[in-house]
């Protein structure tokens, strides 16, 4: 090898070292199996090209997601290097040492939480709540919203029938009571020779379904978890008159206006009910809205979207997740590299374009954002009024108690709303007493 060749080879190796890490890692990112996950796979190809790392994905269907991932974390498993975990896991993730604290990394890489929507930072990243202790980067903003058959709502015959039946114009409901009125109107109505139903809502018992659905009504009627935030003082908040009214409303909506056999339904079932032309309105997470809009049969001009209607207050149930680095990963440096890449405004912009819900201000505050998708405005409105379930380390216990009490009352007709909420308050009190917080 002559001198020139040696210099050229050295430069080549040197330039290679400058652009790619000294060795490539195989990173595994864990998340739920749903539409945005597919978008993330596409997005991550760019990261692979830039970094030289290989990305693998472990997507678990929603009904098993919490079980599977929390077991993985609790057992100190090394399956996931990066985890897009539910917002409610942040307390357990932080206190049980499952998630890497990201403050030093954010400082070092000049990643500012001020660049993300405050509601998402509060919900997805901080523990204790609202303190500047970050365990995740907001990855996927989400809330529970509504969609409806716009073509039916605009049909002159149906509009006239609605006007005659209720005295009101048929349109997107502005209150929960209006929503029920519309649902009642459509229930068992024959449209295009087919019997249709008023609304498809969440009633699932096993994981989180009925809680996520019912809280959409409860929050708007004035339900609160505590009298004073952080006090765990629940008597009079969880079982307040407003909370009772909200729960009674959701039960009535379930009883009057859902398709037959709708006793254990969550995301998949509401999507099916809508796509099969059975439901006039349905609730689901905004994450599904791009796919619904693109549906050839019930999407496009046939579908409309609206934010969860207010009653006493405007509120939506929070969904969405932050991305965390798992403490047990052997590839934390590469995982942090991914987070650094993901936090970039250009990547966030592309994330939104592919169907993911960015929480980055550069995307949300872009003048063209509201018109970029038919549901973008509703998403922004929803995210301004989101409320989330407990994010305590004992979140699973708190959630399962609520699942039981709500399903017992709403679906199984056991007792009254007041009794259900009183029992729920007692269950939660016991959990916090065991935790030493009461």
């Amino acid at each position, binding site marked *: 090898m002559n001198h020139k060749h040696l210099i050229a080879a050295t430069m080549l190796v040197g330039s290679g070292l400058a652009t790619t890490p000294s060795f490539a890692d195989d990173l595994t990112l864990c998340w739920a199996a749903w539409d945005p996950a597919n978008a993330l796979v596409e997005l991550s190809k760019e990261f692979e090209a830039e970094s030289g790392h290989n990305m693998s994905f472990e997507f678990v269907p929603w009904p098993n997601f919490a079980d599977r991932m929390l077991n993985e974390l609790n057992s100190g498993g090394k399956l996931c290097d990066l985890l897009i975990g539910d917002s409610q896991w942040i307390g357990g993730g932080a206190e049980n040492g499952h998630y890497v604290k990201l403050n030093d990394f954010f400082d070092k890489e000049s990643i500012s939480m001020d660049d993300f929507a405050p509601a998402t930072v509060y919900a997805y990243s901080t523990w204790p709540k609202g303190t500047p202790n970050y365990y995740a980067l907001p990855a996927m903003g989400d809330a529970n919203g509504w969609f409806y058959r716009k073509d039916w709502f605009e049909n002159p015959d149906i509009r006239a029938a609605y006007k005659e039946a209720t005295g009101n114009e048929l349109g997107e409901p502005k209150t929960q009571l209006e929503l029920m009125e519309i649902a009642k109107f459509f229930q068992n109505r024959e449209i295009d020779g087919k019997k249709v139903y008023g609304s498809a809502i969440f009633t699932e018992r096993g994981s989180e379904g009925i809680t996520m659905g019912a809280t959409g009504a409860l929050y708007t009627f004035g339900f609160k978890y505590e009298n004073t935030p952080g006090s765990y003082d629940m008597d009079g908040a969880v079982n307040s008159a407003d909370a009772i009214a909200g729960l009674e409303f959701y039960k009535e909506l379930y009883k009057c206006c859902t398709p037959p056999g709708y006793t*254990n339904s969550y995301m998949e079932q509401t999507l099916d009910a809508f796509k099969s032309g059975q439901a006039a309105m349905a609730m689901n997470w905004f994450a599904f809205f791009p796919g619904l809009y693109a549906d050839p049969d019930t999407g496009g001009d046939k579908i409309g979207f609206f934010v969860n209607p207010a009653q006493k207050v405007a509120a939506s149930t929070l969904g969405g997740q932050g991305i965390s680095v798992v403490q047990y990963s052997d590839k934390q440096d590469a995982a942090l590299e991914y987070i650094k890449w993901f936090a970039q405004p250009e990547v966030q912009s592309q994330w939104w374009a592919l169907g993911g819900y960015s929480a980055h201000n550069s995307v949300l505050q872009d003048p063209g954002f509201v018109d970029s998708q038919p549901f973008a405005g509703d998403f922004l409105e929803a995210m301004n009024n989101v409320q989330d379930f407990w994010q305590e380390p004992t979140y699973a216990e708190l959630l*399962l108690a609520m699942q039981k009490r709500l399903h017992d009352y709403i679906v199984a*007709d056991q007792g009254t709303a007041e009794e259900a909420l009183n029992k729920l308050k007692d269950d939660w009190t016991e959990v916090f007493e065991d935790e030493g917080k009461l």
Partner: protein
Amino acid sequence: MLDKPIEKMAQATPATLAKQVKGLSDKTIAWIFVGPTILLLLAVNIFPLIWTINLSFTNFRANRPNKEVDYVGLRNYERILNDSDIWLNMQATAHFLIWTIVLQVIIGFALAWLINKKFKGNDLWTTIIVLPMMLSPAVVGNFWTFLYQPQIGLFNYVIAFFTGADPSTFEMLGSVNLAPWAIVIVDTWMWTPFVMLICLAGLRSIPDYIYEAAEIDRASSWRQFWTITLPMVLPFLMLAVLFRGIENFKMFDLVVQLTGGGPGSITELASINLKREAFEKWRTGYSSAFAIILFVTVFGLASIYVKALNKVKER
């Protein structure tokens, strides 16, 4: 000359080892053979049981191994026994257990009685009848979930055909009144063949000469059934009840697949609640106490039952 294999093997044993073995007593040799099994049994059965009893007196949570564990005495047991929801679970379990056993015994015995008759296609019918018990409970659960579907389910259509009701007006899995029966029907469909096979074995074990003697004595068919068939099949029937009772007391997969314990908690059997407490809420101490209570219940009932079974066999 070493012709026999045993002599060859004996010859192959090294002299030193042969000398050592020669010095062992029968008791020692027995321990050498039984020892590994006992060790295995201790490791996988007895130790976990003792450990579970120990945990049942603590507030331990498996998802927080670093948290300090406190001994709480009998608090977990007190909570469980005073929890009205637990008693509802036990009631649901009892309803499921009793009705599945009653139906399976009656139908299983009737089927065995019919199959025991000599007729053309007997073997084919036996094979067809036992098919359900060869399926996985998860498959059966999914399959019946579709059958029970109010809008497209075959079960609802069949009922509607005979009653004239609209199929979508009743929900087998979603109704508080029907769901407990829906799971009983599925379990009966799946496990009646098992009871039938045991009864069939019992029926075929009765010697023909007893019936021939009864016929010579001019005993009616009804009399033969009550005085010969039933008493001689009874130990087999009781064995089937024991097997199904133990199985259904810990029933989990089929019911989870069908109803998930719902609507509300109407079909939440004790085992489903136990799983939720242990592996979803991670209340390890509490769920250990619950597991011990269930264990004692099953063990106690089974012991009484086995004593009764032995008495019947002795008659």
